[in-house]
Every structure is written in structure tokens, then in C-alpha cells.
């Protein structure tokens, strides 16, 4: 979304707001679904985050990066609602931590070799929810490291760390066949 539309909303333009609403509703819905399958809860969180854009429009011009700001505030609202719902249903401490980016949402390209695919799938299961989320924001949403840090509410340095750990873990799966070959060669000689 261009900077201009935020300026228009800041000036009270409802048409611009409707356009922005539609755009971000889809984007944030897709993001939120990675944490919960409760679509009613998701709708509430989306309404709250997006209506806050309108009610806070007078302050919009002070927000330097509205795109990541909205991701971050939606994430905050969503997490709060998920935690509230858990409390309501008296979930045990197994569900006590931060909501997690579901492992089933990260997938492998269809045309990969079956063996490689299986190993990658296994590596993905070994990632933390936070790692999967960082990879999603960087590679699916196309955010920069600075922006990912802003959405997650952590430092850029920590973001680099999370991301490189995740990627190197995936890379390990590729070096396996080479390793096997080397071992075989050693056994032969």
C-alpha cells in the first residue's frame, strides 16, 4: 500500500479507508490464521485492529511505518484475544505460552525430490513457532529485517539470529546426501 492512502485516511477520507480495510483484511486474515483456526475470534481481532486505524487517524502521520505498525498492533490484539479465550476455556499450562505459528502452515514446494522434501518437512517441524513466523514475514510478506523486527517487537539483531538459525537448520537437510556420499567413499577406500 502506498504512503498516499495513509495520508488520505489521515485527512478523513472514508473511501480510502474502505480500500485499505479490504487490502489489510485479507493480508492480516491470512497471517492470523497461522495462529488460530477460530475465525470468529479472528474477525473480532481484525475489526479491532482495523477500526483503530480510523479512530486513530489523526495520529497516523506520526507513524513512520504504518504497514509494519498495523501488523504489529494486529498481532498484539490477536495474541491478547487468543490468551483470553484460553483462559475462558480454562486451558492447562500446556497452552500457557505465546500463541504459536502453526507448523502445518509452512510447506515445501511440490516439485522437490521426495527424499529432500521429507527431510525439509522434518526440519520445519524442528523450527520454533517464532522462527516460522520470522521466515513467513521475511519470505512470504517480503518484509525487511528491520520490518520483521518491528512486527515481532524485538531487536534487529535478534531477528537476524532467529532467521539465520531457522535457515541454517533447513540447509542442514540439503548437506545430508553429500555427507552420505563422503562416508561411503571413506568406507570404500
Amino acid at each position, binding site marked *: 500500500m502506498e504512503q498516499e492512502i495513509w495520508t488520505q485516511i489521515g485527512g478523513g477520507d472514508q473511501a480510502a479507508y474502505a480500500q485499505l480495510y479490504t487490502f489489510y483484511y485479507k493480508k492480516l486474515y491470512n497471517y492470523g490464521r497461522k495462529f488460530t483456526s477460530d475465525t470468529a475470534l479472528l*474477525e473480532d481481532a481484525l475489526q479491532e485492529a482495523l477500526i483503530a486505524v480510523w479512530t486513530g487517524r489523526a495520529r497516523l502521520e506520526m507513524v513512520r511505518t504504518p504497514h509494519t505498525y498495523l501488523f504489529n498492533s494486529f498481532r498484539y490484539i490477536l495474541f491478547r484475544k487468543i490468551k483470553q479465550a484460553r483462559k475462558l476455556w480454562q486451558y492447562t499450562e500446556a497452552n500457557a505460552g505465546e500463541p504459536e505459528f502453526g507448523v502445518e*502452515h509452512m510447506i515445501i514446494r511440490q516439485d522437490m525430490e521426495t527424499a529432500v522434501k521429507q527431510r525439509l518437512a522434518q526440519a520445519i517441524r524442528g523450527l520454533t513457532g517464532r522462527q516460522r513466523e520470522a521466515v513467513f514475514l521475511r*519470505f512470504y510478506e517480503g518484509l525487511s529485517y528491520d520490518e520483521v523486527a518491528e512486527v515481532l517487537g524485538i531487536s534487529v539483531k535478534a531477528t537476524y539470529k532467529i532467521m539465520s538459525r531457522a535457515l541454517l537448520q533447513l540447509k542442514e537437510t540439503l548437506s545430508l546426501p553429500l555427507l552420505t556420499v563422503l562416508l561411503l567413499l571413506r568406507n570404500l577406500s
Partner: protein
Amino acid sequence: MINAENDRKYADFGIGEFICDGFFQNWIIHPDQESNAFWEAWTREHPEKAGVISESRKLLQSVHFNEDLPGEDQVEQSLARAMTTIGQEKSGESISRVGKIGRIIGAQGFRKMAAIFIGIGLCISLYYYIHERHPIEQVYATNYGTLKTLYLPDSSTLVLNAHSTVHFSESWHRNRSREVWLDGEAFFDVRHSASSGFLVHTKELTVEVLGTAFDIRQRRGKTEVVLQSGKIRVQFIHGDYSDLLMSPGEKIVYDPEKTSVTRTTIMPEHYTSWKDKRLTDVTVAQIAEYLEDNYGKRVILEDSSMAGRKIGGAVLLDNLDDALFALSTVLDVKIIQRNDTLILRPR
């Protein structure tokens, strides 16, 4: 960002360093002309790193995410709800400010709002219309005997066979079909995208990519499509033929002269082995056609019964002279070259 220091830095990089490098990642995430050019040039200068680069690309491209998008009516309902909430806030404001007069002109105001709404919508569509109408076209062509690997704006790859031309727009819109026009032969490895389709147009047909790797060969008046993996839909320009959904390993041949479409099952790896500069499991006639199509040679078989003979194994095409020498040994023929004509004479 692109400078000598960067250039040197990458010379020592392995897969692990590349995949964690922000600048390299940007190429995979938002490939554009500049980054394509940089990495193409860099790989040319460091050919020993080509494998590492391609593995790193592959790894970063292998990871995808489910797309869970809401239905259009769900978005509309939510928007209506939000607009009602906002409207309440808004009318509360106006009543306190302008009192009763505000309520009287309410209906008029609404009409005005709607007009502005439509006006903005028109401006936006006009903007896109103008912009989309004049994209800059990239044109690539190969000479006889040369192959070229191209990165498309979405970082899909295309191997253009000899004596072929493609053109496509310099930048692709995220939510629109990615389109490529081809004359000749090319092998496509298409990056998956849930939001935009991928179309390859030839004179006679259009291939819509639903999955991934395939070959289009438009030679000798015929157009052949071979699917290696994934799923594609072929739409014929000629209205009499309905669309065909192809499965991996299938080959279709469209012959406008005979107005026929044939569909067979083949080994796609053999068919597309040209992109690795080799021909696999081919007959002498097929080699002859290949040399004519891709090297601009005219091939004459003095013993025409030779045409159907199959060559076991692969014919390497790295170097034409070596290939011809190998051919002469295998077939036990003498190959006489006269300008662009090759005569195969039994010994």
C-alpha cells in the same frame, strides 16, 4: 549496495552464508532487473559458484506457506460492519458540530460521498490502466548453437534454446498473470504463486501453468508441449480445440497443417535434456532435425534407412565438432561438411 567489496565478499560464501545474506535474499524475494543482472554477472565471473548459487536459490524457494484467504463476501460483510461502526462515530461528531442542519443535509451528503467514492475508484483504475498498458518489454534472442538461461521478474527460470526468442514485461504485477511470449523452444521452471497465474503464449497456443516445469517446442510449423512436473493447461488459439489439462510425462503435438492434436506419454527428462546440452534416447532423424533447428545446418542422409536408427545413451552437444565425430563413429558414417550442409555417407 553493489560494489567491489560486496563482490569480493561473496567469493568466499557457501550455501549457509548466501541463504542468510539479506542482499541475496532480496533477490529471491523481490527479483528485479537490477538484482537479476547483478547475480547473472556475478555468476559469470565466478562460474565455480554457480552450483552454490543455484542450491541456495532452490533452498530459499522451496519454502512456502499456506494461503488462507477469506471469501469476498466475508470481506464485504466485515467492511460493512466496520463502516457502520465508523459511521456512528462520524454522525455523532457532525451532530454536535452542526446540529440539526447536519441531519437535514445528511442524504445529500451521502450522495456526495458516493460520488467521491466512485471518482476515486475511477482514478485508481485509470492509473493502473495507463501503467499496465505501457510496461517496458524485455526481449531476448539466441543465435544458432547457443543456449541462454534467463531469470524472469518473479525469479522463475527459463532456458532458451538456440535460435529462439522470448519477450516479457520488465516488471510483473503481483496479482496479475505473468506472461511470456515465445518463438522457438524454451524450458520453464516456474516459481509457484497462489495469487498470479503464469502464461506462455506461442503463435498457435497458450500454456497456463498451474504447477511447474515444462518444455514448449515450436518448430517446423508444429508446436509441442512436454510437461516434466506439476500441472499445466493448454489453450489453443484455434477455436475448435478445447483446453487440455496435462499431467507429468505427457507430450502433446499440435499440427496446424493437419489440424490435429496428438497426446502421448514420454520420458520428459529425455525430451528436455537439450538444456543440459545433450540429446538422450533419440533417432538419427531427430538428431538431424535438432541440428537443423538449433544449429541452422541442413542434414542429408545418403542412406535414408538410417533415419529410424536409435542412438543408445546420450549425444553430448557441448561442442558441435565433437558431437559429429561421436555420431560418425557410432553410425559408422563419414560426415562431409559443406558450408551449412552436413552429408552423412555410409562407410
